[in-house]
């Protein structure tokens, strides 16, 4: 049933009507960023062409329309992750900015010398570096949940980690390198038993599977719009409302205030307290449209589609000599990501030769250098899938990989 929906889906994405290097474009780097459907592009164009104006203050018609579109996008996104209220949705630039927001507000206010922050060994640099800096500033300890070679977290030592002044846990929902889905609901519940506040980096989960923040019971939850068909420069922080209400603002300026005199100011209500200055209005509207588009297909259908592609790819690639998929034994994969090594060919050579076939893959450390170290490789090649991919893309990748071998040997 799902294949019917996905058959003509490339037609919704104008980039696939272009030829690149004289060949049909095969895009397999959606874990980095996704292509945009016409609906999203049109909604951004509509804003700039028809109701471009600032929000929350204009008395005139188009400003009212722009404000409605911006706030409708907020409630749309809130419903998409089942937030209790749209007021729990703060717009940021991306997941990275959302992590930095929490580090600079809640964590700076509530963590003190000797406290420890728990992270995992599979974090993207965006959920690692902000905590390294905060730890240096406040003399905090960083402790890590280790991973097994198959890419799953080692959870039997959790009780030890959760003792010892552990106050905060920040971890990824899905690995951007291995596609592992971490059992975050259980981990969060255990963390809460120890009074630990939690942040989930959902940049790789929200785009690819149904996610319910009330069910997960996360305290903070962050993701990026551009990884889920939305524009770049728009991201989301979801947080429980009581947390947001007790946090100091992140940035100060216009729109985040309720009252200002020469020497002091009072803050606006949440979430606007955290949205200083004119925000990325077009970006938010575009992300709201992206959510509509994903909902039309259904997140469970998308998840299943990616798993079907993953299984097809694994089957196909088993014919290739010296082809190794990292985390293949892992039973808890999204199916959206395949990180591999291929003979002793360097990932950059693989990616360059595939580019000649108009196939876009990622080569490098995927902003996860500690994980690369754990896997014992300087870099991997990564193919990642999304709604617009089909088995023909995987066939073309297969042919491209054979070409890699013929060029380099």
């Amino acid at each position: 049933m799902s294949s019917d929906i996905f058959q003509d889906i490339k037609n919704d994405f104008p980039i696939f009507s272009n030829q690149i290097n004289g060949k049909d474009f095969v895009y397999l780097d959606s874990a980095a960023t996704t292509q945009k459907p016409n609906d999203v592009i049109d909604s951004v164009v509509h804003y700039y062409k028809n109701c471009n104006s600032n929000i929350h203050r204009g008395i005139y018609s188009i400003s009212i329309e722009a404000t409605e579109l911006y706030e409708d996008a907020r409630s749309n996104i809130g419903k998409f992750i089942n937030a209790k209220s749209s007021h729990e949705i703060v717009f940021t630039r991306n997941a990275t900015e959302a992590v930095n927001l929490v580090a600079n507000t809640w964590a700076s206010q509530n963590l003190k010398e000797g406290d420890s922050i728990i992270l995992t060994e599979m974090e993207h640099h965006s959920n690692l570096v902000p905590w390294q800096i905060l730890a240096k500033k406040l003399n905090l300890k960083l402790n890590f949940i280790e991973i097994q070679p198959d890419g799953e977290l080692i959870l039997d030592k959790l009780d030890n980690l959760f003792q010892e002044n552990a106050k905060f846990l920040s971890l990824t929902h899905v690995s951007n390198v291995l596609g592992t889905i971490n059992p975050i609901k259980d981990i969060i519940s255990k963390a809460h038993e120890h009074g630990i506040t939690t942040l989930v980096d959902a940049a790789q989960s929200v785009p690819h599977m149904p996610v319910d923040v009330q069910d997960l019971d996360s305290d903070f939850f962050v993701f990026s719009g551009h990884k889920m068909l939305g524009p770049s420069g728009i991201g989301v922080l979801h947080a429980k409302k009581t947390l947001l209400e007790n946090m100091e603002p992140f940035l100060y300026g216009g729109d985040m205030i309720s009252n200002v005199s020469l020497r002091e100011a009072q803050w606006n209500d949440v979430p606007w307290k955290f949205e200083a200055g004119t925000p990325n209005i077009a970006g938010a509207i575009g992300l709201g449209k992206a959510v509509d588009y994903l909902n039309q297909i259904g997140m469970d259908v998308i998840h299943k589609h990616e798993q079907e592609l993953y299984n097809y790819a694994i089957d196909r690639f088993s014919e290739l000599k010296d082809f190794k998929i990292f985390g293949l034994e892992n039973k808890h994969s999204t199916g959206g990501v395949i990180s591999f090594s291929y003979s002793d060919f360097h990932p950059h050579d693989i990616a360059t030769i595939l580019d000649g076939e108009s196939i876009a893959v990622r080569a490098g450390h995927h902003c996860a250098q500690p994980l690369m170290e754990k896997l014992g490789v300087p870099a991997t090649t990564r193919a990642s899938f999304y709604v617009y991919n089909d088995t023909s893309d995987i066939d073309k990748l297969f042919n491209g990989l054979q070409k890699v071998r013929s060029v380099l040997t």
Partner: protein
Amino acid sequence: MSEDIYKEIILDHYRNPRNKGSLSNAEISAQDNNPVCGDRLSIDIKLEDNVVSDIKFDGEGCAISQSSASILTEMLMGKTVDELSKFTKDELLEELGTPSLGPARIKCALLSLKVLKMGTYQYLGAELPSDSDN
């Protein structure tokens, strides 16, 4: 950018690297990494009367970075220290036969030159010019 950059000379040096290894008691010795792709490269140079008498490179990485290092070692044999310090990226790229590598891969090709310059300037006790990796 495509497989067109994999010219015969690059593939030849990639498959059969020249001057691979290390030298003990080298007068000039340096190493560096390309953090984007994890390429690692070291160069050791023995001097006699200020002239390169032996040269080795070692490392791991993509075909472009490793073949460029291999080709560079062949080009430098017999050169004076002064010539090493003045060696240009254009000379190396011309030998590689790939003038248009693109911004992502040119760093791979020039890693060997960067390591050479680091080592040479260190030997001379001079400051590395800021545009030396361009």
